[in-house]
């Protein structure tokens, strides 16, 4: 089959909050579950201001490295791990999820959580990855310079939470990804 030209993206705009959030959207694992891990951080612009109108989605494997392909993310039953969640930011730019540490999916690669970022003022989505602390050997991380590598690794906080900030612009900018079949 011949390749088609993809439809262009556009910004999510300022008015998505009445449409895209849903109940338990960010609770991939019930918060009261003993295995729940809180993943959280701030989304910031080029001047360090938190974005009150950003939306983050994550996609990940379970702790054994299996990526689930099961429905039920929008009406969660409290038991099924679907491996996908959505969190809009609060007025300070803060997002959070209740999830699990992902296991490794690929031999020789470090486990990570896949991320997409949407925001008013951002004309197309951005992709990044959240690696777990102490990632070990990984070809992609090895291809980055030290400050870029560090910026892709979450910080484990004293209570076990993972902290990961996303900065859209400037010297502290996060590493954003493009994949082979993305149009330029």
């Amino acid at each position, binding site marked *: 089959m011949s*390749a088609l030209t993809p439809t*262009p993206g*556009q910004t999510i705009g300022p008015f998505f909050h*009445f*449409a*895209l959030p849903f109940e338990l959207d960010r609770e991939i694992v019930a918060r009261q579950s003993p295995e729940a891990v809180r993943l959280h951080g701030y989304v910031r612009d080029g001047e360090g201001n938190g974005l009150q109108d950003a939306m983050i989605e994550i996609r990940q494997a379970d702790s054994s490295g299996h990526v689930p392909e099961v429905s*039920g993310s929008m009406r969660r039953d409290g038991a099924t791990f679907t491996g996908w969640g959505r969190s809009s930011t609060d007025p300070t730019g803060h997002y959070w999820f209740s999830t699990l540490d992902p296991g490794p999916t690929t031999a020789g*690669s470090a486990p990570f959580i896949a991320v997409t970022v949407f925001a008013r003022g*951002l004309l197309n989505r951005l992709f990044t*990855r959240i690696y777990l602390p102490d990632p070990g050997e990984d070809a992609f991380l090895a291809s980055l310079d030290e400050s870029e590598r560090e910026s892709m690794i979450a910080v484990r906080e004293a209570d076990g939470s993972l902290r990961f900030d996303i900065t859209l612009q400037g010297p502290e900018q996060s590493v954003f990804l493009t994949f082979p079949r993305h149009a330029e």
Partner: protein
Amino acid sequence: MDGQDLVSKEIEDIHASAPPGETQPRLDFAPYRSSLLRHPTKDLRHADPEGAELVAPVFGHNDVDVLEADLTIQAGGEPIGERMTVRGRLLDGDGRPVRGQLMEIWQANAAGRYIHKRDQHPAPIDPNFTGVGRCITGDDGSYLFTTIKPGPYPWRNHRNAWRPAHIHFSLFGTDFTQRMITQMYFPGDPLFALDPIYQSITDPAARARLVADYNHDESEHEWSLGYHWDIVLTGSHRTPMEAEELA
């Protein structure tokens, strides 16, 4: 506040120096003032997709009720405005239908007003219209929403700035790398040339991919006007054999 003339001149200058054939919006597009501090200044990094990036989330009819595809029946009474349908197919970059996948839409009402606390422009709320819809695509990638044609609305990018009427679409493919959000526009809108969000796509043929067709065969006698819009995601990274197994 800058005027339309200045913003239009900025758009014209960027378009004049853009190479032909850019298929996606520029992230760095100054005529859209909100992008100034929100576009990456470092190049995107090339990565080979791995693990969860190769597997889109899965949704089903346990997630979405079929009635959610009709935005005219959600609030108890008839919404005001031009009743319309929009239908088409969701395809991947190789032309394969994306079947059984979640589509979400949201939009302003016929007067150009969103149900959102930050939309305070003095146009009426329609108590019978929420402007939110969802569906799960069919086996051939098809979708159908019944709604009310949204109105254009003013915004504060520059003086007397108006967004062309549009419906927001949120889309998933078979890979997580195909995730996208976009906006569908209506044919012949006089605001296209003035709108920095639409014009952030520098190539005219690429911009036109966001404009639905009016399709008279899809209009219904004494009932609704039919618009048609097919959507193409980026390519999947699964091998053709894996894709067939999914089919």
